[in-house]
């Protein structure tokens, strides 16, 4: 008997251990994922720059400070073949390998510098320009032996420095990993989310109010309920097919636009908001409705004066969670063509644009090694946004959740 009890206790301990192991492994996986992304991504926020002396008058561009400042200055700057200037100056300073040390995006930095201070054009200046991808990875001690040796020489000569990559936060997509930025994708995401929120929030809340407060119980409302519950479980890619067939092929809205992306995600997010809102509305005690009705408030007044304000924290929590899901969504947006190479941030809703998760997907497909750290860095930015949104949602839930 005693042995049996001991065996049973051993089984009990084992069982408990399994449970603990399941939790620890799940959390461990999350940790592993985050650490991997962090380790890869941290380097994406660092830029490597190599110094380059350029003698503008000698380059024969014909650029004077007055021309740059005057009308048509931008055009003159764009017309000046600064990439060739950079290549020549690099060859003059570093020899034959010189041009290969600099990023393809180096000339835009030169152009920006000239625009910011046109007086540079009259003399010889030393500029810090972004290094080419292999030099960049080498400077972060992850490159080929040859590139690493080259980077070491440059560092010793004081011609190489590293710093925070502001260009990554302010730039857009590019073919050169050292010149890429996420602002274009981020702006696309913001525009898309704007459309999604503007449609899904009012429609979701209003239909939740109707279903919870007014709808008579009949076949129609059952149909609405079943539709909403099923829509919440439909795979997101199906919404992409819907967007493709309806918005693009039937209504001929522009491909790859934030407007269409927002519409598609709104249809996907709306059921989430409806379900969360219904739960929040259900939690408002009936005694509040009775109190207002007994004072002579009409059903519409009862809902808009009392029920909706009291349910709002719950509704907002659900909305933020739904929006966070939409922000991380990729597949439906691929379906409506949001996978184009977008080198300029979208200006309006109908401009071709991309979003952050799609940008991550596109970069993950690139062969160049320099894109690995950029992909992870973009993932960090995306996760920061999502964590912030979820944090706000949890805060709202804890701060305003009323127990009746």
């Amino acid at each position: 008997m005693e042995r049996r009890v001991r065996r049973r206790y051993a089984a009990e301990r084992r069982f408990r251990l399994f449970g603990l192991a399941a939790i620890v492994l799940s959390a461990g996986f999350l940790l592993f994922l985050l650490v991997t992304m962090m380790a890869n991504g941290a380097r994406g926020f660092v830029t490597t720059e190599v110094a380059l002396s350029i003698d503008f008058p000698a380059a024969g561009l014909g650029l004077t400070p007055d021309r740059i400042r005057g009308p048509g200055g931008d055009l003159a700057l764009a017309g000046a073949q600064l990439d060739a200037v950079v290549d020549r100056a690099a060859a003059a300073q570093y020899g034959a390998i010189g041009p290969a040390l600099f990023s393809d995006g180096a000339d835009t930095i030169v152009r920006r510098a000239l625009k910011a201070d046109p007086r540079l054009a009259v003399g010889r200046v030393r500029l810090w320009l972004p290094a080419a991808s292999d030099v960049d990875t080498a400077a972060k001690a992850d490159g080929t032996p040859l590139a690493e040796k080259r980077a070491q020489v440059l560092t010793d000569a004081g011609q190489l420095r590293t710093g925070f990559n502001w260009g990554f936060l302010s730039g857009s997509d590019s073919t050169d990993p050292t010149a890429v930025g996420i602002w274009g994708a981020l702006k696309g995401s913001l525009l898309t989310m704007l459309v999604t929120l503007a449609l899904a929030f009012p429609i979701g809340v209003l239909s939740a109010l109707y279903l919870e407060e007014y709808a008579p119980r009949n076949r129609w409302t059952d149909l609405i309920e079943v539709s909403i519950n099923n829509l919440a479980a439909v795979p997101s890619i199906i919404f992409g097919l819907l967007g493709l067939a309806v918005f693009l092929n039937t209504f001929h809205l522009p491909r790859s636009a934030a407007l269409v992306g927002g519409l598609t995600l709104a249809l996907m997010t709306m059921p989430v908001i409806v379900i969360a809102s219904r739960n929040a509305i259900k939690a408002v005690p009936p005694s509040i409705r009775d109190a207002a009705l007994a004072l002579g408030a009409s059903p519409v007044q009862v809902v808009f004066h009392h029920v909706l304000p009291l349910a709002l924290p719950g509704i907002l929590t659900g909305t933020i969670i739904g929006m966070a899901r939409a922000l991380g969504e990729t597949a439906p947006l691929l379906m409506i063509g949001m996978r184009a190479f977008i080198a300029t941030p979208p200006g309006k809703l109908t401009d071709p644009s991309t979003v952050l998760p799609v940008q991550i997907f596109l970069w993950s497909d690139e062969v160049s090694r320099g894109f690995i750290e950029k992909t992870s860095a973009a993932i960090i930015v995306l996760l920061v946004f999502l964590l912030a949104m979820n944090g706000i949602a949890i805060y709202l839930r804890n701060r305003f959740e009323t127990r009746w």
Partner: protein
Amino acid sequence: MPTSALLFLVAGLGLIAWLSGRVRAIAFRKAPGQRFSSLPRHHGSFAAMWTVLPPLLFLAVWGACAPGLATNGVLKTPAAAQLPPPGFERAAILSEARAIANDHHRTPLNPLATRLAPAYAVEQSRYGWIGGATALLLGIAGGAFAFLRIRPGFNARTRIERIVMASLLAASLIAILTTIGIVASLLFESARFFGTVPITDFLFGRHWSPQVIDPRNPGASLGAVPLFWGTFFIGAVIAMLVAIPFGLMSAIYLTQYASPRLRAWMKPTLEILAGVPTVVYGYFAALVVGPALRQLGVAIGIPGATSESALAAGLVMGVMIIPFVSSMADDAIAAVPSAMRDGSLAMGATPSETISRVLLPAALPGVVGGVLLAISRAIGETMIVVMAASGAATISLNPFNSATTVTKQIVDLLTGEASFDSPKTLAAFALGMTLFVITLLLNIIALTVVKRYREAYE
């Protein structure tokens, strides 16, 4: 008339209507001691609604048909005689002409479009003015009508509330419209697909290679069985082998054993795991898990080990589903009456015996429902398989081998440059239809099971 100016005018009219409706209602309220069912601001809003809504509705309809009217007008001009017969080219020229008319800085491609552009500009502005004037007239007429209806006994509040209720109803109908939209678009395109490819070839064919489609017998290379197998193998087998034990055990540990402090930390952690976007999981699977598993496969001598293996995609997908299974199991266990647990413990059973002999059997329907929902999620999951699974359609039981899924193929088929009605793109819709039907069935079964189970303990 520019749209913004028109909307501004309508809004201005609405404001005037609101103010005058209010003033008129106040004037009627001089009689003291009398109760009114509506307040002056209700009357004001009533007038404003009658002023604003008719023009807006009219403009919505007008916006849909005015371009057609303008095009008809353009077609009557002499320049239009040179247009090619109705078809794709003609439509392209017309739409370019419209674009030039609206945006003068555009560089023209087609000389005919440039010549048609002025006519377009004339027609557009003509119909724009007609529409604008009609809208304003409608607004004024509506406002006047509403203004005259305001009398002492007039109940403006119930009229406004009726409009509010109508908009609530309309909002809730969007859900039905979306469902209809999904079903219709999938059905329509699938029907076109099955017009060229026999449905039996698609459902039972074992060869899938959409890159080379024989136009005489497209069904021969569009057999979806390898896709169904891959989807099932990755989503319903490998992913569930990870998600069910881990999810279930976490739920059991968190609900039955964990200290409140641990639970307060672990629940949000699991929620974060659920909130990580799938593209991140996919990247992780492709970057870390896939290559690692290939090395493992090679090391233990498995033939055909690839970094785009079914196992990599399935494992990561399973991890993604853990929080989902865990929260469903959590709900199912919480729904079991505590009396059952207490009864077992009072007989001297250990907690683990109580859980495995009493709680789990009682919670089983709820858990099964949750697992079905999890499977439906896994087979609809796209980004992980797009990034980590392979495009080659093979049928293999070896998890280190490559496998492809329905969702992966939909993305591959639709992100090429094929025209919209080629069998390739239509095949994507047929796959989408299949996916939709299967997930729908799984959801319906799961929800019924869960609902029955909840009712049993209520």
